[in-house]
């Protein structure tokens, strides 16, 4: 296993988005849902930040993706559904109810191997 690392966003996109993505993104910003079947939290990735995309399984209309990021890329974590903002509600981090996940993960893939890793993704069925 290589000790060099790449940053990646791991999550889910609608199947139709996955089909259009190919192995290097689709030239537009990509929105990745953090949890399957839940669009409450998404990570928005600028088109220029994507080094490659690995596709996983499709289930319930969503495809799992691993979006490998270019070095020093920035992404935006977005909460799409809000709780009424005027009540000063502070979330209780109760693991019995919610799971907070960091938007970016580190994986053991050297950046120079990303193109080879994603090469087979050009034929997304």
């Amino acid at each position, binding site marked *: *296993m290589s000790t060099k690392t790449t940053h990646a966003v*791991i999550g889910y996109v609608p199947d139709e988005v996955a089909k259009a993505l190919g192995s290097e993104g689709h030239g537009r910003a990509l929105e990745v849902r953090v949890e399957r079947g839940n669009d409450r939290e998404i990570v928005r990735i600028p088109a220029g930040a994507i080094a490659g995309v690995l596709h*996983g399984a499709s289930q319930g209309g969503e495809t799992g993706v691993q979006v490998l990021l270019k070095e020093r890329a920035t992404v935006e974590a977005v909460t799409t559904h809000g709780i009424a903002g005027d009540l000063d509600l502070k979330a209780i981090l109760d693991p019995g109810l919610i799971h907070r996940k960091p938007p970016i993960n580190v994986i053991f893939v050297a950046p120079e191997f990303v193109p080879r890793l994603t090469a087979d993704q050009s034929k997304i069925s």
Partner: protein
Amino acid sequence: MRVLLTQPPLSTNLEVSPPLGLSTLAAWLIRKGHEVSICDLDLAVKGLPSPRESYPALLEGAVRDFAPHVVGVTSMFNNSLQAERLTRLVKDCDDSIVTVGGGSHFGALAARSLRRIPTLDYAIEGEGEAAFASLLDALSRGAGVTDIPRLCHRADGEGRQNSSDGLLDLAQIPAVWPVVKDCIDVGRYARTIPAGAARRTIYVEAGRGCPFSCSFCATAPFWERRYRVKPVTTLLEEIRYLHEEFGYNGFMFVHDLLTVDKNYVEELSEAIRESRLPIEWMANHRTDIDLRGLLPKMKAAGCWAMFFGIESASARLQKQMLKGLKREGVVSTITGLANLGIASTCSFVIGFPDETPEELSATVTMGAELKLLGAGIVQFHRLRTWPPAPLSRAGLPARFDLDSLRIEYPFLEVPDADVSAIEADPEFFAGYFAPHTAAGTFAQMAQVEMFFTHGIHLAPLTIAVMGRLSGGNLVPTFYAVVDRMGGISRKEVEAEPGSPWPAWRELHPRLEGWLALQPNLEEWQGELVRGAMAYEQRRLRFVNSQGVDREGLAASGEDWGAFISPVDIAALFDRLRTGDALTSDLVREWLVVFVQEGSNSFGAYTTGVEKLPDLRGRPFLVEPSAA
């Protein structure tokens, strides 16, 4: 030859996974040209009014219908008495049928099994596939059995144990499930999964063997501590078959410690992801094996959980049991997994001979704190000396442990005759003769096991606060509650499978009782416990009700309910997670608001009590924002 493989009833669970060891053995024997059928009595008795009385007749029917030459009986430790009865029953049906024992218990004590059970003709020590096939070959040829490795047989009225000639290369085992499709109805197992289950899970074998030497572990020495894995292609073939044919989408990879070989885990993760199969999986792991960097790949490949044996919070006991885990490593691993959205099951072993009540208290508190850090399930198990664990040979003073037997027996009731039979043979049923422990009496240890496993599941915040405030006194003060109020019972706790309420009805009065028996707690400390308990009871009600349960709420809407908490719950969670001190400033009134954010997702929030008028009159709190 015609071979019938059977297992006795194993548990009271209504959801059943196909018997893995028997299915693997069946696949091996089928490939060797034998005709095999599996009679799984654990599945067969489900839904019958009296499983305990029904299983013998079910096997009788299977023997009559299949007319086997050989019957193989597997035994876990908790159902060995039933396995023994099955061998008698087979001989009663037809004395010419050859009986063979294997599995965790007969396979660990092969010679002792032959001595105890006259109706058992052979037993196989350890790994069974090659020995069973060689035995069938010898029987069909009328040849002798003295040179069959691992076989235990009788000669001159005595049990003789043949030596081993090594372990299988697991690449020789075929993909099990397609091969056994005509001898076991996997679809029947799939139909035991409740409609609406989060995932449809099944056990599949990924490999065998753990190189570590934990003193209490029977599995590692059973597989001779040699780490082996199935080829990724074989495992993937099994997964694909089970998913496509039966809709399974949650795979529990059975391996003592799969993550020893990170390259294998990486290869497996890549293969699963590339397969695009919409499945999830879990496996056994250790907190001192560093998977950082690989975990995201595992997550992307569907890893939903990892299982850990944490065993104890005590550094002294960690060293003594040769586990050697460090608290910092445990905490960082569980936290790291939770951050990735990978759940963890944390298992503890309690009741080591010189374990003190203070050490046990620290272990229980650690379990609750791990739950707050994101562990999915925390469970406690009484130390038992199952052979061939190193501790089973240590000659520890032990006593029959009826309470443990009651917790694990395959039936809810343990008949007196079964108790007598097990109690009368400490050598054979060694697992139910638990070592004495300085941590408590046998009954007290059973209560700790049940109470805190369920308690941390339903009320981790409350138990973490209790642990922090009482320190080493948590367990002794719990014993005082049990003395005063009596213990909880398995029958009551399991009264309604899937519902938290029977367990809560047992736990809640005892948590209140604990509080009432703490004269040394300062008033604010008592308020913290009461506040945590009230919060967790409200959470249970909110999450488990159809619609918003409005009883006792200060205000509510269509997707929310609010109550006034005497404690700053958000800060309390934070302090417990960070290890900061609990102080009296946590006792102050806050409004707690539970919100249903999705069909099966909930959030909890706090705000000042002065916001209550603003909340009232709002039907919904979840609102889409312009993202």
